[in-house]
């Protein structure tokens, strides 16, 4: 993490400069009215609106509603993905049973399920949580399955020689050994969950950040709309940062181990 941070400051200096240049370009293009002022407000005006929205608490309450749904859906999707992935990785019969259906369901883009989900679950939180869980499920499932298949048989035999079997074997050996794979899946799912959260809120909602952005656009509150999008960028960045922080802690052994084995 520290390495990444130092790298982020020094190695990515050019990237940060580019970001600042683009923000300046936004400001000047809006001041010079290269684009219609109605749909292209000044960066400084958007920043001021963002500040007001944060100060009034409006943005945070919308964000809170969204993050709550996302956290619940994501946790559900990850949990089920790990459970089914371990079962598919451990039992050939379960793999044979579930592999065809996952291969058919997985490639369908998650937003396509939204109309179906509305039909059965309505337009309230249940639908959104289901959509987020459903789309977070598959990346975790597939990576967990691969991780379980990749557990070194010597580790499993070692545990067996100490009399460890069944659920204890899964908890003590299979899950830690597959953890690097599981985390890869969870990271993909995190990005997917954010996308599906926004989409489901745009389709049908009365609160949440996705609803806020769409409602602002429809009400010609363009500065609010941009403020909402910038908030989403910050949330996505923040969530990924938090995820990496946790991953670095949990998988510290794996980073050391793979660095050792690259030599």
């Amino acid at each position, binding site marked *: 993490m520290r390495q990444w941070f130092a790298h982020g400051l020094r190695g990515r200096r050019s990237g940060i400069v580019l970001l600042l240049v683009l923000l300046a370009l936004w400001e000047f293009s809006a001041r010079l009215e290269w684009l219609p002022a109605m749909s292209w407000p000044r960066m400084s005006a958007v920043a001021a609106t963002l500040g007001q929205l944060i100060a009034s608490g409006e943005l945070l309450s919308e964000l809170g509603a969204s993050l709550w749904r996302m956290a619940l859906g994501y946790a559900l999707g990850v949990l089920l993905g790990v459970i089914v992935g371990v079962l598919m990785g451990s039992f050939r019969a379960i793999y044979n049973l579930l592999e065809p259906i996952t291969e058919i369901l997985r490639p369908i883009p998650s937003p396509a399920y939204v109309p179906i989900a509305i039909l059965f679950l309505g337009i309230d939180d249940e639908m959104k949580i289901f959509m987020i869980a459903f789309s977070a499920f598959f990346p975790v499932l597939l990576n967990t399955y691969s991780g379980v298949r990749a557990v070194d048989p010597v580790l499993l035999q070692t545990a067996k020689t100490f009399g460890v079997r069944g659920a204890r074997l899964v908890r003590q050996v299979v899950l830690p050994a597959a953890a690097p794979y599981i985390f890869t899946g969870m990271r993909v799912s995190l990005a997917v969950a954010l996308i599906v959260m926004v989409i489901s809120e745009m389709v049908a909602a009365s609160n949440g950040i996705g609803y806020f952005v769409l409602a602002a656009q429809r009400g010609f509150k363009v500065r609010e709309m941009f403020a909402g999008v910038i908030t989403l960028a910050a949330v996505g960045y923040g969530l990924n940062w938090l995820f990496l922080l946790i991953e670095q802690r949990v998988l510290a052994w794996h980073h050391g*181990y793979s660095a050792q084995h690259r030599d």
Partner: protein
Amino acid sequence: MSAAAYIELSGVKKTWNAQGRLTTALAGIDLVIEKGAFVSIVGPSGCGKSTLLQIMAGLVPSSDGLVRLHGQPVREPPRDMIYVFQQYTRSLFPWKNVQRNVAYGLESRGGLSAADIAERTAQTIAKVKLQGFENHYPWQLSGGMQQRVAIARALACAPDVLLMDEPFSSVDALTRVGLQQLLLDLWQSLGLTVIFVTHDVDEAIYLSTRVVALSRPPAHVGLDLTIALDHPRDAILTREHVHYLDYRHRLLAQLFADEGIASGAVHS
């Protein structure tokens, strides 16, 4: 079953089904091993000596025949028997440090308090001379040290029998001598029974009270030698002993004849 029998193999057979073709790896092995023995199993590579050890450990089922420990049939890994794998880099848990790896076997047994586990773990780590490395991860240690962690993890459970599958084959020559010495010391001081698979005839004679040579597959016991050399063994002098050289001669003659390698050996 004779009075001295501790581990008894009767007619142990192993056949593999490879692409519809039945191949016999072990043709029917009979062995009686007494408590406290140090028995090495040697043989050409692919003769099934590791398979035989895994059958004895209850990790792999035999196709026919029976293994008994204390007269009880072995069908799954018995508590008194611990298997030490050849691939120490793969058998240590990379997410556990040395302390937690060594404690793993004890924790898996249950019935011990955390304080007891900590105490026995510390004692065992001292036995294999790894004090000061408790908080290191396996991948931060050299190969020889990693194998000592694996041995400590096995010994912490206070087993009666250690089954070792070429445990020193991937460490350098000097480290190997050190590990051999350590193993002999532990065998003597703890009263262990050791079954040791190796492809190295010198290592087998140097360590053992008995060496069993398997033939090429379908394998049977080709030669069964009692090694009547005094303990403690000496890393240099034992290997120059006239009896040592005689055992070496007979074992190599057996293995070479089996492989069809010409030599000047006098068959005895």
